[in-house]
């Protein structure tokens, strides 16, 4: 079997699952080394995560929270986020971690009473937006107009 990159004999056979699909690659010793495949440290879940991220979004390694300066590297190293905004910035890399870490990914516990009204508001806005999109997709413009008005009213109420 020949190496994927050159004509040498392939001795390293790599199987990776990326985005739920299995990828196989055969490499010779030197190409494998050049790609960091033989160094187990380079094959951490983190790196695999980076390579899956790279296909659709900017490389995860360059992610940084503008609010507190926490980088993706910081998070991988220390396992801690720096502020509330980090949860938005790092959401793409966080979601798969949370699935493995917890019983579910939706909070089912206590809702702070002060936030209750805010939470309810956010939920209704989300709901209306989703319904609006469906209405537009179904070309039900009458319903869409009605939903748009409701949404506007809700947002105006919140500002008062």
């Amino acid at each position, binding site marked *: 079997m020949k190496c994927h990159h050159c004509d040498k004999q392939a001795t390293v056979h790599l199987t990776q699952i990326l985005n739920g699909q299995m990828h196989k690659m055969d490499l010779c010793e030197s190409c494998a080394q050049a790609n960091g495949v033989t160094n187990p440290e380079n094959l951490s879940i983190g790196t695999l995560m980076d390579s899956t991220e790279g296909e659709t979004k900017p490389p995860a390694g360059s992610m940084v929270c503008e*609010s*507190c*300066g*926490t980088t993706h590297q910081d998070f991988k190293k*220390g*396992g*801690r*986020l*720096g*502020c*509330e905004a980090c*949860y938005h910035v790092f959401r793409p890399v*966080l979601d798969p*971690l*949370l699935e493995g*870490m*917890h*019983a*579910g*990914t*939706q*909070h*089912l*516990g*206590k*809702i*702070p*009473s*002060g*936030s209750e009204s805010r*939470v309810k508001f*956010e*939920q209704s806005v989300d709901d209306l937006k989703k319904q609006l999109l469906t209405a537009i997709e179904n070309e039900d413009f009458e319903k869409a107009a009605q939903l748009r008005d409701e949404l506007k009213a809700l947002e105006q109420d919140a500002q008062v």
Partner: protein
Amino acid sequence: MFHDLLNKFGSSKKKPKSIPVTLSTRIRLARNLKEFPFPGKAEEGQRRAVLSKCMDAMNDMDTLKESTSLEVDDLSELDRQILVEKHLISPELSQVDEGSGIVLSSDRNCCVMINEEDHLRIQVLQPGLEFEKVWKRADELDSKIESQVNYAYDCELGFLTACPTNLGTGLRASAMMHLPGLVMSKNMDKVINAVNQLGIAVRGLFGEGSDASGSIFQISNQQTLGESEGAIIDRLNETLKNIVTQENFAREKLMQDDGLRLTDKISRAVGILKSCHLIQSSESMDLLSLIRLATDFNMLPERFRSLTDRMFIEIQPGHVQFSAGKPVEPSDRDRLRAELLRKEFGRTPQLNLEGAS
């Protein structure tokens, strides 16, 4: 003032009741304030602002009447060590430099840490297996604080915490369990593996893994997101009840199979505690563990159970030095520890082997 508070710990008139197997129950809630970076990323000014906001929020609170508020900066190394040994604050909090604090209720069952890993760590603890009461108190305290400050909260992810392992409910419920039967019958590894499958973590209180000194283990939930607080606590509580059953079964079996050896072990423990002149804390823990076991077997009067629980803490290095009123070298601590144990166990009665069941 702080030393008055510490002194009250030992001489509290209302002795906490002490039951077999479960030493204490604890609930901890992790919370952060909106609009401030988490403590790890906060600048000193921001930490100070969070500290005073949190202290203000807890001022004049009924639940925390006559509480003591302290800044960690103001405490000596030894004071901090004492609080860690009493499990009131974490080793992490004892290491921080600026702008961290503690609010401690007068009955010492509530202790709120400010600017540890999260802005707020609300902790409630109580002797025995009492999740219902402990959760109720923690929940109330949390709601009252929340009426004064805005928490960082997301409707999907729940309470936002510095470490994603605490996300959602921010709840860590745990019990301190005395499991000498499972340790002696070498079943602890099996138990640890089985409960790990249920998302429950076991760690030695002093030491690691299945050979914790004193056979004391802290057992807690690992997952905090995707379930309600009630569901998390119920699952842990069920598991703990199973562990208590297993522990009692292991004890009975040890007594049936080789009662003489166990009785011999316990008698020797009494002998050493009565007559030692130098003793390290790990050995003391193991001997105290046997005394607690003997009390559960009715070989010693009930009061020895609460005495052991008190001694588990008072023989720790910080406490030995605190009693001495000054920092003491490790070798001299062993002498002082032995003195304390001789005094407390000097009049231990003969084991009641009739009562052993």
